């Protein structure tokens, strides 16, 4: 075992190199936590169960859009019997009044850039910019 130092030294360097991503993320404070959208404090019930909204809100918004614009149908009968007006700013943003802390947090995490806001107006943003 003449090369003991060399072997264990090399192994040590190898282990550090292999586990470098782990150390790096620990040092940088990265976690595997998902995004944490801020839910509205006052309102507890959305237009559909949370699971459905989480996975399919985009499909629902497209359906709403087509029904309102193309078929002039504006009322949405929710799963619990309640009726909502199909509006992005008027209905969704009425409860989810903080787009930056709700919509954007997940969208940024997932790296998606929905183009809703190129035309539709976020009232909260409007107030802040004094427009």
């Amino acid at each position, binding site marked *: 075992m003449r090369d003991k130092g060399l072997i264990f030294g090399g192994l040590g360097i190898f282990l550090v190199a292999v586990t470098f991503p782990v150390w790096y993320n620990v040092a940088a404070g990265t976690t595997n936590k998902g995004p944490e959208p801020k839910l509205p404090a006052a309102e507890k019930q959305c237009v559909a169960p949370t699971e459905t909204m989480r996975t399919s809100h985009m499909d629902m918004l497209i359906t709403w*859009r087509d029904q309102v*614009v*193309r078929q*002039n149908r*504006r009322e949405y009968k929710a799963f619990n019997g309640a009726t909502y007006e199909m509006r992005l*700013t*008027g209905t969704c943003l009425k409860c989810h009044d903080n787009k930056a802390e709700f919509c954007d947090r997940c969208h940024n995490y997932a790296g998606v850039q929905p183009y809703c806001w*190129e*035309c*539709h*107006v*976020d*009232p909260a943003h*409007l107030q802040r910019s004094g*427009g």
Partner: protein
Amino acid sequence: MDRRKFLGIAAGASALAIAGSALPKVIGGGSEGGTEPSSAVRWAMVIDPSKCLKKDGCTACMDACDKIHNIPDFHDPKHEVKWIWKEPFENAFPEQENKFTAEKFKDKPFILLCNHCDNPPCVRVCPTQATWKREDGIVMMDWHRCIGCRYCMAACPYGSRSFNWLDPRTHIERMDPGFPTRTKGVVEKCTLCEERIARGEKPACVEACPEKAMVFGNLSDPKSEARQLLQERYSIRRKPELGTQPEVYYLID
């Protein structure tokens, strides 16, 4: 009956049958003529220019429309976006070709907007069905679907459609969050305030007019104010000779 005679009779009968089914279509000419509207609701506008001209330089209807629909102002006629606007009588009604126009209308500004035609040429040319005629007569637009080809602008004989050459967002004086803006590369026009009609309200221009010069109503209803006005008074429409069947009427007596 021999074979030759039978074939002759058969050919004659089928020719008659074909002519019989095709002729009424040719003579009827599709949507031509002042027939009763076919649907239960047919929204239309009746404008009384004499009332409109009472107040010199009034822009109440245009201002109301600009405000609630987030219409941009680029301060450049080349980029003008307009839903409702003014044009001198002679330009609005070029087919009148009168040598002497009545003094009360000569060079006077007339209020113009999308005519929501019964036979809209813009709808025929749109390649993506971003514009279409609703059952209640409104020529509607889906800005999500518009690809900005501007065929509709070429087809519209009234200049009712505008194109966003620049980003309109930066040129809106006061943004109303209740209505979306448009984006660069999209055509826009008057929608007869369909979002207000859905709530049971009148179009914003009609409501804003201090002289009540604009009357909005259902032409399918013989008792509606609009229909009554058209029955009692003499009205003209813009470029009716084109067969577009515009549904904005101007009372000129």
